[in-house]
């Protein structure tokens, strides 16, 4: 079909006119009103308004796409790199000289049929009440042992590592199973049944990331039924995406990642362990506090005891000292000294008296001696005097004799007989 006839003269239009014509033409094409385009998503850009811009591409071409928020709400989760079938209307965007697909429906390629099947199953199971909140079982706050149903790999490792770290006392019974591929859902169901026979407090169903098809087993009836008949509460962490699988809906608890599941299980243990540790520290500090206070009181008591005893000792010592001083002042030695002084004084006085007495006596004696000497008759004789006697009587007066009388003169040595020649009385 030819748009323009070559033989016509060259059409000249304004940009707007041209755009209008192009649009009108396009809009008259019914197949472009509802067309499905297959391609890979790229540049997936959700806007704050809820509308989404993206592109569909293959190895040669690219088609810009747009979704209104009202349609986008209903979309399954898709993202860059996902191959999809996008259904919508082709339109012209004049302002950017673009043609765009306004997408009203989108589905991962090939998944459409599967998704429909899963959706149908979902409705049936929901009608049985399998997804009801009331069915959900509480599981033990302090689980001792859990069964891990998973393939070997990073998911299982992450789970076990986190669990060991946060609650090392929780034991893990690993029940290995395929988690994707043909018939995997039977293996998974059998593994869950095995877990029921174990003595555990919970069953953890894990699966790492993967495509919708890879995760399909967890959207199947065998797995759902196995979870329903599980003797223990079941916890799922499937796919790392936010996608909800039927297994998630029927499980007793759902987590986004294996690590989150492990943290949940460890939760109470970890909390209690840290509380215990804090209490242990408080206890230790309290005891230490008590010990310290007791030691302080003992030290204070020691000191006071010492002080009291020392005070008493020094009181007594003081008193003793004072008494000793007073006693010493009363030392008889002092009184002896006094007595000695008095004695000495007495002796001195005595001496004095004696001296005087002796002197006096001496004087008297001397006096008497001299008097005695003076009355000694021989005394004058010695000095040349004579004692003249007459008739035996010593003469003192000349008139006691007459001339011619016979007298005797006693000399100091010898005598004389003499007669008086003349008498001469004192005038």
């Amino acid at each position, binding site marked *: 079909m030819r748009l323009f006839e070559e033989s016509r003269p060259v059409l000249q239009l304004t940009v707007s006119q041209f755009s209008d014509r192009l649009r009108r033409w396009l809009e008259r094409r019914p197949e472009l009103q509802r067309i499905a385009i297959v391609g890979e998503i790229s540049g997936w850009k959700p806007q704050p308004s809820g509308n989404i811009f993206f592109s569909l591409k293959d190895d040669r071409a690219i088609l810009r796409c747009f979704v209104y928020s009202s349609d986008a709400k209903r979309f399954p989760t898709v993202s860059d790199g996902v191959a999809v079938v996008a259904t919508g209307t082709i339109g012209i965007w004049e302002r950017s000289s673009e043609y765009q697909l306004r997408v009203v429906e989108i589905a991962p390629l090939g998944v459409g049929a599967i998704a429909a099947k899963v959706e149908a199953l979902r409705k049936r199971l929901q009608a049985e009440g399998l997804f009801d909140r009331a069915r959900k079982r509480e599981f033990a706050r302090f689980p001792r042992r859990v069964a891990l149903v998973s393939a070997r790999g990073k998911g299982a490792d992450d789970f076990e590592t986190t669990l060991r770290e946060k609650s090392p006392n929780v034991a893990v019974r690993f029940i290995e199973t395929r988690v994707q591929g043909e018939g995997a859902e039977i293996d998974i169901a059998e593994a869950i049944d095995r877990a029921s026979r174990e003595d555990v407090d919970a069953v953890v169903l894990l699966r790492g990331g993967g495509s919708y098809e890879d995760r399909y087993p967890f959207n199947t009836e065998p797995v759902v039924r196995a979870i329903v008949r599980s003797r223990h509460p079941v916890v799922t962490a499937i796919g790392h995406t936010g996608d909800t699988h039927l297994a998630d809906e029927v499980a007793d608890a759902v987590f986004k990642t294996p690590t989150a599941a492990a943290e949940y299980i460890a939760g109470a243990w970890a909390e209690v362990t840290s509380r215990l540790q804090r209490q242990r520290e408080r206890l230790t500090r309290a005891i230490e506090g008590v010990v310290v206070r007791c030691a302080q009181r003992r030290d204070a008591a020691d000191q006071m005891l010492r002080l009291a005893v020392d005070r008493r000792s020094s009181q007594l010592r003081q008193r003793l000292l004072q*008494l000793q001083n007073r*006693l010493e002042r009363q030392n008889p030695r002092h009184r002896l000294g006094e007595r000695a002084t008095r004695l000495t004084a007495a002796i001195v006085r005595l001496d004095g008296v004696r001296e005087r007495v002796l002197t006096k006596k001496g004087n008297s004696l001397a006096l008497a001696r001299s008097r005695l000497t003076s009355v000694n008759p021989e005394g004058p004789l010695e000095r040349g005097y004579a004692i003249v006697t007459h008739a035996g009587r010593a003469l003192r007066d000349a008139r006691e004799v007459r001339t011619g009388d016979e007298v005797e003169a006693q000399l100091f040595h010898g005598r004389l007989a003499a007669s008086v020649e003349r008498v001469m009385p004192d005038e």
Partner: protein
Amino acid sequence: MSDRGGFEAKLDRIDAIVKELESGDTKLDRAIELFKEGKHLARECEELLKSAQLQIDEAMSDAAQGGKQRAKTNELDDQIPF
């Protein structure tokens, strides 16, 4: 400290002796006798004080030793098993 009864009594006796001597009208030979008694008692009191001090010092150091031993056992109790 049972000697304390004897100690105080001795001090009191010395006090009495000193008072009598201080009164002044003691005959010499009595004064000498009293003085001798007083000095003797004072020496006894000094001995008693010395012995008391020693006993106190011993008691204080004994108590310190005992305290150290008790503190050591407390450290061993520290490892409370949980």
